[in-house]
């Protein structure tokens, strides 16, 4: 029982964190251009003017 008292909240907390993280990626627009993101990583010399 003691193990459960620690492990169950731990498992649920981690799961909830993952869910919140997923919500953040969704709101951040990270699924808007899956094809572009996939090929963009192949080009490393992107330079931007500042």
């Amino acid at each position, binding site marked *: 029982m003691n193990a*459960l008292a620690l492990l*169950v909240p731990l498992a649920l907390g981690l799961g909830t964190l993952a*869910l919140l993280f*997923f919500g953040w990626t969704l709101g951040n627009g990270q699924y808007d251009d899956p094809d572009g993101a996939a090929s*963009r990583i192949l*080009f490393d010399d992107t330079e931007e*003017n500042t």
Partner: protein
Amino acid sequence: MTAFPARLAADEPGLSAADCAHCGAPVPPGAGRFCCTGCEGAAALIAGLGLGAFYRRREAAGGIRPTALPPVDFAARAVPARGGAEHSLDLMVAGLTCGACVWLVEQALAADPAVLRARASLATRRLTVTWRGPAERAEALASLVARLGFQVAPWSAACLRVTEDEEGRALLRALGIAAFGASNVMMLSVAVWVGSDMGEGTRGLMHWLAALIALPVVLVAGMPFYRSALGAIRAGRVNMDLAVSLGVLATTAMSLSEALRNGPYTWFDGATALLALLLGGRVLDRAARRRARQACAELLALQSAEVTRLEAGGTAHRVGAEAVRAGDRLLVAPGERLALDGVLEEGEALLDTAATSGESLPRRFAAGEALPAGAVNLGAALVQRVTAAAAEGSLAAVARLLERAEGARGRYVSIADRAARLYVPVVHAVAAVTFLGWWLGVGLPWQAALVPAVASLIVTCPCGLAIAVPAVQVVAVGALFRRGVLTGSPTALERLAACDVAVLDKTGTLTTGRPELLPDTARPAAALAAAAALAASSRHPLSRALVAACPTPVQAAAGVEEVAGAGLAHGEERLGSASFCGAAEAAEEGPTLWYRAGPLAAPVAFRFADPLRPDAAEAVAALRGLGLEVELLSGDAAPAVARAAAALGITEWRAAASPTDKAARIEALRAAGRRPLMLGDGINDAAALALAHASATPAGGTDLAQAAADLVLRAEGLSALPAALRTARRAQRAARQNIAFSLAYNLVAVPMAVAGFVTPLIAALVMASSSLAVILNALRVGREASK
């Protein structure tokens, strides 16, 4: 990964000598490495920016021919930021096909020191560029992208509607929540399943923890289904989503009752896993269709342009067509498409009305005559007095008609919903009888009797059945997309599969819509070059065809005079109608131009024909082979239609059909119990396209035709249509097999559930295996379609 360089070549455009080094179009031997000066300029521009690696990195050559900027005021669309010190502009960029294109566009813009940020999205074709400096730079930046070979258009509200996909995002969020719930509840459930030595108190704790997770998850993640089910109930119908909603809610309620009395098992895992699985299918389904809708919006955005309004003071301004009111005067440049209805103010005009009436030859309009919106100006610039604002014009009337037809199509009941209609009452009746049997018949407490009853619901469930049709759809729509057929509507394939008669338009659909010179051995060879020299100064399609047919480079003759309604004159030389050149008015076969070198010389005839697309005969034969009758329905004159019909072996044809005639013919076919497939490209076809059981349009079609059609054939040619039909029929067959399979599965599973043998573990296995089976069957469709 073809994006990696396959070989280490120098930064040179590397292609075979026969293809243009920039755009990949064929180049005649000896003409150099480029097909046109535009491509040469683009390659020089890329080399100058030090971005030559693009040619090695791109996945496929093609589709990037430099074009002129559309006549749009880009500067007016730039959005100022930081008090006007910076501006940003959103553009729709067509032709972005791979990561290398995105890289090229972004890097080329970033090379400009004033540009702060340039970001292109491959999925949405949207380019956002931010720069320091005045709004007027917008034009130069847009033109840089155009010079690289990508067509640009202002980012319009229509593009936005397609990409800002709120519903898709909501589905994705629901999927995330359901997947979270399913995995966490499963973790607890497995503990109960294997923990036979677990104390009752611990089991109760597990049940309540599962309930704590599952209740909110079922409530939130199931929303898409509940909403659709409610909509169906309000409309007095039964659909698959209703079956899903009832199954999930009943299972959750029963599990709650089991948790309350601390029964052996709860079924929260089944409810959440079911939601996750179905939402996954729906997200994929949406993504497949979104790509197609996206491509359609891209085609449309390239067509939308602004108009030039002449102000009272004589100045010209470019404004959006929606801002123009009746009575305004518009300047229509040569080659521009008329956006609004109006009358010709002065002089004479030559308009190509193929899109509005289907006539393959241009018509002459006198001052004061009504000019139809959608026609293309082939003559000199003209001034048009607008008679109806965009919202009241003829194009808007067609658009309204399409909306009404769209509503009618929305009432089409898909095969999945037809199955649900039978399935929902039967399954729920079985569940009710099971409950009553165990409760009153056997005498179990009502909570215990609820378990087998709801178990029969979740076992039969929806899973295999609800995923049976979407799985096939995803695969078929994706396979068609790769072949260049865009499918927007969810029921398009189903309707297409059922069509039994094909109604084809002629001009622009079966034919290329551009006249070509017919070979004639009796004609003196020198006459062609001489006639072409005169024709070079005219925009008339026959003149252009004459110039195009001339094998030697054409030097335009100076001082060519255009005689309105008759032809061209250059000194003693004449090119034009028979009477203008003094030829006997013989029975003319199709459009003809006459050429006379001098007053005494014999006139020479040049005959033209609107050639059939090279694959038209093959496509018609293929449609016949698939069991469709083929009809030709054209707005063009009878001789031209008769010729095309004879060439294709079509016996059923009608010429000079007005848009209303076309729509009436489709309605007559429907009234006779037929299911017509309409193929057309013009504004005059839009009504018929919308009314037909299923419809398709070639990519070059007008925006209204594209909006009305179920399928857009993006690939050149018509052979994609029979292929699409074949894929649709195969998909339909697979959907039926899947439904039959799910029902057969249920014949075994339901008696077991009713008898009370099914535990949540067995239910989970049944659910997963039946879903896998239907998905694998669906994948077969894609494999066969891409053969």
